[in-house]
């Protein structure tokens, strides 16, 4: 284990402990409004200051971590699996299958999915619990986010199909199913890893953007996405640096994960 990986390990452990122990660490609940101290700078009482409604930002970061860190990777995994299945199989089978799968993928890339999400919100009751709403949102993101990777995977699998070692394995009488899992899928790993890592922050941000449609985390619950959205109103950069803490934390966590798992990624590569 390299120094970087040890560091990553420590950071992730800290973040994990922090989010689990939010109840004890945070000075107040994530919804508690200090209406006398809104939009306050960091102080002893509020380590990261307060938001527009006087809620402690540190508490919101800790609680937000729980939701985002649990659900975003799950959705990323879902989208990666779908990409592997659709892209990998299509490329491996080739011919008409590949062409049809890629036509569907291209359609998926160009349709205005916004309207599907608006419809999804309309189908849910207004008084839905915030947790269910956010789970549905991440599931939808996972179901819609596979397209890019699928396209690249299809090409990769197609080139594998023509490669010598697969032909040799076929000649040796290896069953198609086994061939797919043993020889094709491992070679798709670089793309699958890329898809997985890109999806996590992208989904975290998308969840916040879907808030405008009434999907995603409902007030007063926090999520990393909604914390990052605070940055949008920041006209003058540098005046309130503490507002960047959620962004920095997210970057650090995502990078730590990548560094920690780079061994596996490297081996796959």
């Amino acid at each position, binding site marked *: 284990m390299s120094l970087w990986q040890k560091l990553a390990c420590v950071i992730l452990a800290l973040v994990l402990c922090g989010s689990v122990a939010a109840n004890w660490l945070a000075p107040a609940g994530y*919804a508690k*409004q200090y*209406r006398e101290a*809104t939009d306050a700078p960091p102080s002893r009482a509020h380590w990261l200051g307060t938001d*527009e*409604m*006087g809620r402690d930002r540190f508490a919101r970061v800790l609680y937000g971590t729980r939701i985002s860190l649990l659900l975003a990777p799950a959705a990323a995994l879902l989208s990666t699996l779908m990409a592997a299945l659709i892209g990998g199989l299509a490329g491996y089978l080739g011919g008409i299958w590949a062409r049809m799968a890629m036509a569907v993928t291209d359609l998926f890339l160009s349709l205005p999915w916004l309207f599907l999400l*608006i419809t999804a*919100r*309309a189908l849910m009751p*207004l*008084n*839905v619990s*915030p947790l269910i709403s956010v789970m549905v949102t991440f599931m939808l993101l996972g179901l819609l986010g596979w397209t890019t990777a699928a396209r690249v995977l299809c090409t990769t699998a197609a080139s594998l199909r023509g490669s010598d070692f697969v032909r040799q394995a076929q000649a040796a009488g290896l069953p198609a199913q086994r061939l797919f899992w043993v020889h094709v899928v491992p070679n798709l790993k670089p793309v699958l890893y890329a898809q997985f890592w890109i999806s996590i922050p992208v989904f975290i941000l998308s969840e916040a953007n879907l*808030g*405008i*449609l*009434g999907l995603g985390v*409902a*007030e*007063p619950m926090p999520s990393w996405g909604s914390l990052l959205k605070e940055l*949008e*109103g920041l*006209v*003058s950069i540098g005046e309130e640096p503490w507002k960047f803490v959620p962004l920095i934390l997210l970057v650090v966590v995502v990078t730590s994960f990548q560094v920690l798992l780079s061994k596996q990624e490297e081996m796959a590569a």
Partner: protein
Amino acid sequence: MRRHKSGFEQMTNTCGTAISVAMLCLGFLLGHAVAQGGGELRFCLRTEPKTFDPLKVEDDASASIRYLTGGVLVRVNRQTQDLEPGLAVSWKVSKDGRQISFRLRSGILFSDGTPFSAEDVAYTVQQLMDPALHSPTGDAFRSGTGNVETNVVSPSQIVITFPAQVAGLDRLFDQVAILSQRSSKKEMAVLGPFMVADYKPGSSVLLKRNPNYWKTDEQGRKLPYLDSIHLDIQPNRDVELLRFKRGELDLINSLDSEYFDKLAATSPQVVHDAGASLDSEQLWFNEVAKSPIPNYKKNWFRSASFRRAISEAINREDLSRVVFHGHAQPAVGPFSPANKFWFNSKLKPQPYSSDAALKALQDEGFRMENGTLKDKDGNEVVFSIITNSGNKYRERMAVLIQDDLQKIGIRVNVVTLDFPSLIERMTQTFDYEAIILGLTNVDLDPNGEMNVWLSSSENHQWNPQQKAPETAWEAEIDRLMRAQASSSDPKKRKEAFDRVQEIVVEQEPFIFLINKNALSAVSAAVQGAAPMILSPQTFWNAERLFVGTK
């Protein structure tokens, strides 16, 4: 006219600056010969103007352009709120309120040189009252069925007769920009201080001074002073503020309270808080009988004491202080105190008290169980508040209200929806429980809100299109609104509408939350600005503004 803006304006900026500096020097030398010298005023339109036809105006951006380009017979002075002569030197409304006669100024030309006469007024009114037009400006005049008669007595005199009485008839002409009957340029020939010179869809509108504008200042100098107005189409408020700070814009109309404080911190002389505006923000419950919500919830929402208790449990002071940084006033009733004549001054701000609210609910049979409020049948009191996404002030108000109501054991779910989805729930499916929205008031007269208060109308949002009034108080409001509309005695009208305001405050079909202040920013370069609460706040006196020296 439609040309395209280069995508690389930002890349070529330094080069552009150099050129414009050179141009500026050149312009300085030639300035006296070519232009009036009042400079160029620059500000933003928040949306694409949908039309340049003054009769079809329905959005803010088009209304701004109409205000700057259109010549009107009479003008409401945005400062005094009084009616002043425009193209008409005098006017008279008949006793029965159906007829108005105007004496017009003579010797006036449209921007393209076509002469103006009473024929043009007749033409404009006929176009405006065309039943197929469906414009808010025209509909405001529609009080009964039948045709409008225009009688041109002489080139400078006209009598207009409506099929039925129109309350506040003369003031409505403030919105009617006169078109030319004969000009080949149609609606682009104008009588106002400015005219549209260039339009780049999606990016900007350029107005130039109308050389034929009739008005002069006290020294006999031709108005307007400004040479041109450059309007950028920019929906994003952050970008607008950024560009104002950089000196690329001169005005910001209806500035956000958050930005007001940010600007005030660095340059307090540019921001203006004109006090409470006419606009209100309100919360209301769904009282529609056929709505697809559970019956026990309908019973809560249709009970006036429930609505009153909710209203009492909302801390309006905090809404104004926290959400609007103090740049809003707790609302008293349907009309803002800023409406000098029509506001019922007997009404007082509603006190905030969770304890009193809880007590009132308990008197109605609600009870508190482990911090949760339940109705007399044991149903937990939970409801959702929807509001339109993208309006952070409404979202924040909803979150504060959620917290306020938590104190009396009510659980509120806040849901933001995109505007079309919200409108569908509000006007067609009635699938909602409570809404926070705002009402933008353009005119001072209560007749402008006829369709809000009449129980039979579409915009009677809490329970629209009632065949017959479902409650006694709604029947009473109907009667009073009709009575004030059919009277031409201002005192009687005021009495009737005062009573309407009292009933609304008593029954709380709309729970009025706050009246936003009219905030604006005007750069130091602009001379003569005096921002007002009435729209268009900062440029209501555009003809007398100038940038730099006259």
